């Protein structure tokens, strides 16, 4: 039988764990609100940008299109940009992205392609390093960044574009979690280079407007494509940020509840043992008295 002191210590330690998880849950809830606001504030820009860029891209396809749009004509070398969190304790958030990236990498390697991996966020790097240590090309550390800004996205985008221009890879795909709700985040892949656009939903109306382009259609496209990459990465970072906090919030909520259950169970055990000890002592006293 575990002695009373041990049980008491155990209850105390679970109680302080519960305090910690509770606090983390509340912090995550507060951060989630901010992350969600940031994601919403960024949405109008991304939507318009993609609408305009999509329209431009559709109208100026063909051989003269910039490489960022048309690709290098090969798909031999793939760059996987895996975006995860800098911290753990957020449920399946990191592992779901990593799982998806790993599946994709294995599939590509099996079909004879070369895979390069660039990680954003420490957790993804740690997990992928085990299997793909030779494929890792770089890592972007955002642990010092409190609020992800467009600058961060631009930095990643510039790095990607430079590597693309140097012929280091042919196709770049980003992996991130799309924020659906607090309890559901969807691991998503998106090809950013060569650029791919969703067919505009209200496209019929858009196409009918004939725009004047200044300086020229090609000129604008050439300027906008790099920003397009940055915008897509920025959107992904924001979605990821909101997803991370959402995932952490629900994970910590579960942890808090589990700790509560455990405290109840331990308390019952503690009381039972205490009673047993008292009964024992009474029996000893009574039998001692009877013996006299």
């Amino acid at each position, binding site marked *: 039988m575990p002695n009373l002191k041990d049980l008491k210590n155990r209850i105390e330690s679970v109680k302080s764990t519960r305090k910690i998880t509770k606090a983390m849950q509340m912090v995550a809830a507060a951060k989630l609100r901010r992350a969600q606001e940031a994601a919403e504030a960024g949405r109008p*820009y991304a939507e318009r940008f993609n609408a305009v860029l999509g329209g431009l891209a559709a109208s100026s396809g063909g051989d003269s299109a910039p490489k960022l749009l048309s690709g290098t004509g090969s798909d031999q070398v793939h760059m996987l940009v895996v975006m995860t969190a800098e911290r753990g304790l957020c449920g399946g958030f990191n592992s779901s992205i990593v799982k998806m990236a790993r599946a994709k990498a294995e599939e590509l390697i099996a079909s004879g392609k070369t895979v390069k991996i660039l990680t954003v966020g420490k957790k993804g790097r740690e997990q992928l390093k085990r299997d793909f240590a030779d494929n890792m090309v770089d890592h972007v550390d955002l642990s010092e960044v409190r609020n992800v800004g467009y600058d961060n996205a631009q930095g990643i985008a510039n790095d990607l574009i430079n590597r693309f221009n140097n012929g280091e890879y042919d196709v770049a795909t980003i992996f991130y979690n799309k924020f659906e709700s607090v309890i559901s985040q969807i691991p998503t892949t998106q090809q950013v280079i060569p650029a791919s656009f969703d067919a505009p939903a209200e496209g019929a109306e858009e196409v009918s407007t004939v725009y*004047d382009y200044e300086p020229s259609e090609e000129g604008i496209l050439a300027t906008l494509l790099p920003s397009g990459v940055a915008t897509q990465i920025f959107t992904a970072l924001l979605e990821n940020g909101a997803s991370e906090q959402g995932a952490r919030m629900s994970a910590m909520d579960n942890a808090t509840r589990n700790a509560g259950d455990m405290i109840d169970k331990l308390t019952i055990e503690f009381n039972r043992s205490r009673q047993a000890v008292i009964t024992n002592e009474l029996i000893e006293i009574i039998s001692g008295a009877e013996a006299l």
Partner: protein
Amino acid sequence: MADTMQFDLVSPERSLASLQATAVQLPGADGDLTAMPNHAPTITTLRPGIVRVESPEGNAEFAVTGGFAEVTANGTSVLAERALPVSEVTQDVLDGFVSDAAAASENATAENLDELAKRTVDIAAMASELGLSVKG
């Protein structure tokens, strides 16, 4: 004829302005242009400069560092890489713009060297327009 149009100024991080305007002066890459209601549909890239908005409620000025503008008959949207009200542009902010441009120039390739040099000059021009100066 409608005498106002919808004006939106958005940056990747937030939406800065959304109001009814009578005229918007844009720092286009090929030169300034002013968009008024019923302007022909135009898409133009922007150089670093100042967007001036005239509206019935008064005028507003925003500094932008690039991006593009979409002008249609009943509205103008400016999608700026970075934008902020002119009143918030201090010497520190300006120095930030300058150092960003300088950093970009350092890894410039032959093709975009001119473009980046122009960018630096445009920022200097914007600075003098705002009564600030670019150091060194």
